[in-house]
């Protein structure tokens, strides 16, 4: 959605931004609303309940696969591993607000990963 908004902006400025976002949001909004209304209506039906019981562990598996794939792409060096480990512990164990963790990531990025501020491997880190 953000990608569509950005492309819309590049092509036609703010009107482009608005129409691109509406174009990507509206169809999925109506489809989602339809499915949600349908599911809430038949929530207690045994077949729907069993479908959900099967899908719940599947979604967990999808998230674990996503962690695996993202870790490969994002944890490129020791600093990134350290940052991820600290954020994980703070949010899970110490109940830090996830928004604060993201803000911390912005600050850490500016401090730790600034080009030239730290020794960087060749071909990496130069924006």
């Amino acid at each position, binding site marked *: 959605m953000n990608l569509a908004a950005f492309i819309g*902006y590049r092509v036609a400025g703010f009107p482009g931004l608005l129409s691109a976002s509406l174009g990507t949001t509206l169809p999925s909004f109506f489809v989602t609303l339809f499915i949600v209304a349908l599911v809430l209506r038949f929530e207690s039906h045994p077949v729907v309940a069993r*479908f959900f019981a099967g899908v719940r*562990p599947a*979604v967990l598996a999808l998230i*674990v696969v996503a*962690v695996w794939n993202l870790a490969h792409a994002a944890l490129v060096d020791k600093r990134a591993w350290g940052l991820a480990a600290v954020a994980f512990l703070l949010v899970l164990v110490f109940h830090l607000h996830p928004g604060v963790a993201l803000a911390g990531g912005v600050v850490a990025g500016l401090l730790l990963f600034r080009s030239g501020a730290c020794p960087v491997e060749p071909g990496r880190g130069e924006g």
Partner: protein
Amino acid sequence: MLVRLFLVFAKIGLFAFGGGYAMIPFLERELVAHEAWLSHGQFLDMVVLSQVTPGPIFTSAGVIVGFRNAGVPGAVVATVAVVLPSLAIVGLLGWTVVRHGHLPWLQSVFTGLRPVVVALVAVAAVTLARSSVPEWRSAGVAVAVGLAVGCFRVHPIWAILGAGLLGIIFF
């Protein structure tokens, strides 16, 4: 109610970095812990629903929570609220990038955000694991789906439909 929906979802939209699964701990904190709009079980089902409906997880969350609490107007208000902040941010960034060309500091910001996003998705997995795998049949489904999607590159939507079918037959 509508005003409360708007405020909470605008806050969610403001932090909608990384989209997808990284939003789960954030949504859980806001919708279950703070506002008590959903129970843990309903939250889990919301995550499930967001996987079988189009669009990113936070717009699905907007539709689901808004609709549950205030019908169609609630769904519209929550969705608009969740989309507005990221529109503003993208507009601002787009404007800066187009005007000033490439931004080296933006690269640093993203390099710092990525590990945090990984950590948040991992937190989501740990939090959901407690309620989504209550018994060995569920664990079997989780392992099967993990292998199918992770090793055999099955498309997630087929894995979800397959798991739902397994649920209807065996649960």
